[in-house]
């Protein structure tokens, strides 16, 4: 039986009727058309589907959309706050070539938002540990680590 849910996604309220078995990842991609959240494995291993639910990074393939009822979800589309300019972390990835095909990138960015808020000056070991939950099959991670290091600097320089 379908249930009606109200979810805020990137600050915009959505009300939809959904089947309980609908995964949050599919709700974001198919029901509201935000296809920036990628689905790689659908069992929690790859991290491509990582989004923020009430500011915490979680796997959207391991949550049902009904469980997001009344919550605030942030996806990669919400990173630039609706402005033209890229988010400092996106800048970091752009500058340092922190991506090749880009499939893993949205999940990595969403993992990094709360991480860099809590760890403004992370060590390389801490960066590698947080990245362990996101699989990238292109880059070999070296460029991603450099991108995170630059992102941390850019975030600290960000005015306001």
């Amino acid at each position: 039986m379908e249930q009606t849910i109200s979810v805020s996604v990137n600050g915009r309220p959505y009300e939809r009727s959904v089947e309980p078995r609908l995964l949050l990842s599919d709700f974001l991609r198919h029901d509201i058309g935000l296809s920036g959240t990628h689905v790689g494995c659908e069992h929690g291993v790859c991290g491509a589907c990582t989004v923020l639910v009430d500011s915490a990074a979680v796997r959207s393939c391991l949550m049902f959309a009904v469980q997001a009822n009344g919550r605030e979800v942030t996806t990669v589309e919400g990173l630039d706050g609706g402005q033209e300019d890229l988010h400092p972390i996106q800048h970091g990835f752009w500058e340092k070539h922190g991506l090749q095909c880009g499939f893993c990138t949205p999940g990595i960015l969403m993992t990094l938002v709360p991480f860099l808020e809590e760890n403004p000056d992370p060590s390389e070991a801490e960066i590698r540990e947080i990245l362990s939950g996101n699989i990238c099959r292109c880059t070999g991670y070296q460029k991603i680590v450099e991108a995170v290091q630059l992102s941390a600097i850019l975030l600290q320089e960000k005015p306001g």
Partner: protein
Amino acid sequence: MKPAAFDYHAPRTVEEALALLWNYGEDGKILAGGQSLVPTMNFRLTQPTALIDLNGIEGLFFLREDDDELRCGAMTRQREVERSALVKRIVPLLHETMPHIAHAQIRNRGTIGGSLAHADPTAELPALAIALDASMYVRSFTEARWISARDYYVGLFTTSMQPDEMLLEVAFPGLPAGSGWAFEEVARQKGNYAMCGAAAVVDLAEGGSVGNVTLVFLGVGEAPVEAEQAASLLVGEKPTAAAIRAASDAAAKLDIDPVGDIHAGPAFRRHLAGVLAERVLTKACERAAGHERQ
């Protein structure tokens, strides 16, 4: 793949959840953090008729100190335990082990109760529950009982809970001053389930010989395995490198009977168990001795 259809219930109280569980029996499944259950549903290995989601029951999210024990509500997130100053103070072994469980994004949702109830043979928390002599508070619609961790784990993904029973709370006795502890594991990649892991808790007696020791392995049996022969070799001995090595050898040779899988064969697991036992026993004894000097 996508999960099969199910009825979804989000009770607000424990009583409501227990009534639902009673009604559905084996066809109802509790949904905690979903980090083990949802993958199996996505693969359609599990197709429950109904899910009873505990995420809306506020009374199951807590961490508190009670009579030198850490009391932890079943729905307390793994991440919360990892970051809790209370946990670090009274059960430092638990604090130290949390980062080994999966990745931060998974610990943000995954719960203590979910991991304990799931009883994965390579999970960290079931082995720790035994090493720390924890007790589980379990209720059904009609009854309530406490089960010691040693009686809770009975086999592969199997606990002594009945299908209409729910885990509500875990009590971890605080580590007394003068005890030492350690946890180590070997996994192919940080955050993956380990091939083998070991937890040790040691008390030294007057004069510095070993009073009590508990050594528990994960990944070498269908449930956590307590190394009893190794422990009996060490009790009463001075914790010298030679005594620890002898006990670790005994643990790897006599206390376990690992089977192999695609991740590691039996001989390799046995080897890992011996090496990890030696490391955790050494560290736990050193810590116990350090405590004494204070």
